[in-house]
């Protein structure tokens, strides 16, 4: 791993008693936690455990009802928005546009005028930048790959992924997991919410278990050696 | 029709509307208070 000589690098995410209500329902029930940089966290839990809500709050899409959050050293998430990548449960892509048209538009939102950035992002997830097909005609696996490309397009330090492998065939999912591992190795912090823990076993640094709106346990993965075997 | 009828109607409308509105608020208040008590007792 990259040389983090000091024992406790400042946390990327610091959550203090985070609570989120939807009407009378408490989706997050007092989460306090801190997460170190350069690691790949896999968030597990049943439906309704609050995984997606947590991700949305961290991404700045939702205001927490109580508690505070500090992201990359900032209190206001908008200030650090360019350094965060978010991939939602839905694809977050326009069906009527082609893959490159989508990426080009989103790159524009981050002030990236260079087409090559978008092309590289597509290649990284194993898609052909010159594919003229519109996203509406993509297969589910291709959509998820493109969605991942959109999330990491602007080279964010913190990447939040909500169910990136849903409806994706095993082969594609393994590819995507490997991509995530490589991105982590570049020193990025990654959160993956998923049901398919097995897919992430080779690359995860820590499993975070959630239940009923709280973090119930965190299991660090002891890496036997540098993960040579998992990279085909 | 005599104009007095209109005068009466106007005053009746005003009284009825204000009192009905008052009663509505009070009844809703009662409902909220009962529900609050139920909630506290349930704990």
């Amino acid at each position, binding site marked *: 791993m990259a040389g983090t000589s000091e024992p406790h690098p400042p946390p990327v995410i610091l959550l203090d008693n985070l609570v989120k209500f939807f009407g009378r329902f408490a989706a997050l029930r007092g989460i306090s936690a801190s997460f170190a940089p350069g690691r790949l966290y896999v968030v597990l839990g049943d439906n309704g455990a609050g995984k997606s809500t947590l991700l949305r709050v961290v991404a700045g899409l939702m205001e927490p009802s109580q508690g505070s959050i500090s992201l990359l050293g900032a209190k206001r998430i908008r200030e650090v928005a360019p350094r965060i990548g*978010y991939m*939602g449960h839905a694809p977050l892509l*326009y*069906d009527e*546009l082609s893959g490159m*048209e989508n990426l080009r*538009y989103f790159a*524009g939102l*981050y*002030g990236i005028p260079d087409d090559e950035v978008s092309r590289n992002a597509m290649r990284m997830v194993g898609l052909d930048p010159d594919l003229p097909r519109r996203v509406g005609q993509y297969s589910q696996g291709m959509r998820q790959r493109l969605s991942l490309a959109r999330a990491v397009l602007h080279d964010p330090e913190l990447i939040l992924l909500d169910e990136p492998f849903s409806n994706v065939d095993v082969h594609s999912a393994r590819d995507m997991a490997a991509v995530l591992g490589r991105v982590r190795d570049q020193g990025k912090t990654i959160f993956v919410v998923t049901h398919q823990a097995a897919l992430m076993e080779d690359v995860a640094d820590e499993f975070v278990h959630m239940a009923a709106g709280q973090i119930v346990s965190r299991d660090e993965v002891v890496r036997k050696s540098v993960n040579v075997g998992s990279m085909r | 029709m005599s104009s007095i009828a209109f005068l009466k109607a106007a005053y009746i409308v005003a009284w009825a509307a204000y009192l009905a509105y008052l009663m509505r608020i009070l009844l809703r208040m009662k409902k909220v208070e009962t529900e609050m008590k139920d909630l506290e007792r349930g704990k």
Partner: protein
Amino acid sequence: MTTLTVTRTTLLKDLRMEWRSKDAINSMLFFALLVVVIFSFAFNPTAEESRMIAGGLIWVAFLFAAVVALNQTWARELRNQVLDAYRVSPAPPNALFLAKAIGNFLFVVVLECLMTPLFVIFYELRSIGPVWQLIVVALLGTWALVVNGTFFAALSIRTRSREIMLPLILFPISIPALLGMVDATTSILTGEATPDFWIKLLAVYDIVFTAICLMLFETVLNAE
């Protein structure tokens, strides 16, 4: 990355998507056509009478048609939840609002250009006052409807039965603008009065409400 650049790219993206699907413009056009036809059944005026009522008919028809387009404003952003991708980006929220408002403005102006000849034919309309004034009124009035409509469509995203919510909150607030458009149009068509007051009123309305929309849009967009 300025507001204007993002506004431009977002607007171009919307126009390209609209060009490919033609959802909004087609439904809006057909709807307006229906309204014109039904109105001309319901009222069968002489050329003289039609000058008196045309202002009202035209603008009510355009208002209803505009609501059809406005309701679709955010539909595309909600499908696949693409709006979230905009919201997590550092792009200014007002750029999104301006792009949507300008897009709707263009749609409704196109609709007006296509529909006005029909009104002229069905109602034997001929303006006695200067036609350029009609164009000024149309542009100011359309922006008045569209700027608030775009904002209220965004408000309606977070309501139940959102399609019906939009006209319910848009129409009452738009009454002075509608009154201005109708009266100005009638006074120009009949040539009996000057529309100056109404043009000024529409201009004030546009400025006031554009300012309020830009002040409040970020709050509304990020409320979740």
